């Protein structure tokens, strides 16, 4: 598969763009339609395209397989650790406005307190899940 020039060139240019679009969806989750689940799926699809075109070996050259499996727990851990901010500030677990976190002006990029942070956690979780499921199901044959 690695002597197909058109496929290689197109994938080389398209995969970074899909990743950037996924990051855009994730970081604008509190401003526009989308959010962690949608953006994480887009990034996972970019990883699937990358490993279909260049092979699983190229994916493991970027991220070793053991590290990829360890990263399954990164998203939930990020989300849960963000929840402790509310506890530290004397409110409920995962509290946002009640914990006295500044909500900013609506519509600004840095607004609505911890929501963008936990959106990033959800996005990481979904992207890693899609990638790992593809890798495992491909390897199982």
């Amino acid at each position, binding site marked *: 598969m690695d002597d197909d020039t058109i496929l290689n060139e197109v994938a080389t240019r398209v995969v970074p763009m899909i990743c950037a679009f996924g990051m855009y969806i994730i970081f604008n989750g*509190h401003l526009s339609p989308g959010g962690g689940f949608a953006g994480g799926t887009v990034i996972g699809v970019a990883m699937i395209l990358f490993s279909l075109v260049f092979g699983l070996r190229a994916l493991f050259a970027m991220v070793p397989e053991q590290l990829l499996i360890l990263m399954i*727990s990164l998203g939930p851990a990020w989300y849960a650790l963000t929840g402790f901010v509310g506890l530290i500030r004397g409110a409920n677990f995962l509290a946002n*406005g009640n914990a006295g976190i500044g909500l900013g002006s609506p519509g600004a990029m840095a*607004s609505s307190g911890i*929501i963008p942070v936990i959106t990033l956690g*959800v996005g990481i979780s*979904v992207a890693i899940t899609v990638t790992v*499921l593809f890798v495992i199901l491909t*390897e199982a044959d």
Partner: protein
Amino acid sequence: MRPRHLALLSLPLVLLIAVPLFLIAADMPTYGEMNPTFNYVVERYNERGLSETGAVNIVTGIILDYRAYDTMIETTVLFSGTIGVLLALKTGARRRGTLSGRRHNP
């Protein structure tokens, strides 16, 4: 007992579940009718969602602020699903014959 009789036996069970469900559905308020018993959550979200969460996207405001616990457990569902597929399909242990990779001595 033949399978046909078993199928007839399941009919009272289906009726036992279906009839209360239809009765509940008949008791529900008409769609769009402003019934204060059922709609106060929606009104709260529409009126004060922006000022309480700061998110312009009201869906994100609901699922990541009002319903943040629910979304956290959703990511945990993704996590445990991946772990399940990993346990069932990861090669290596499979090659040695048993799921745990060890042979049981009878």
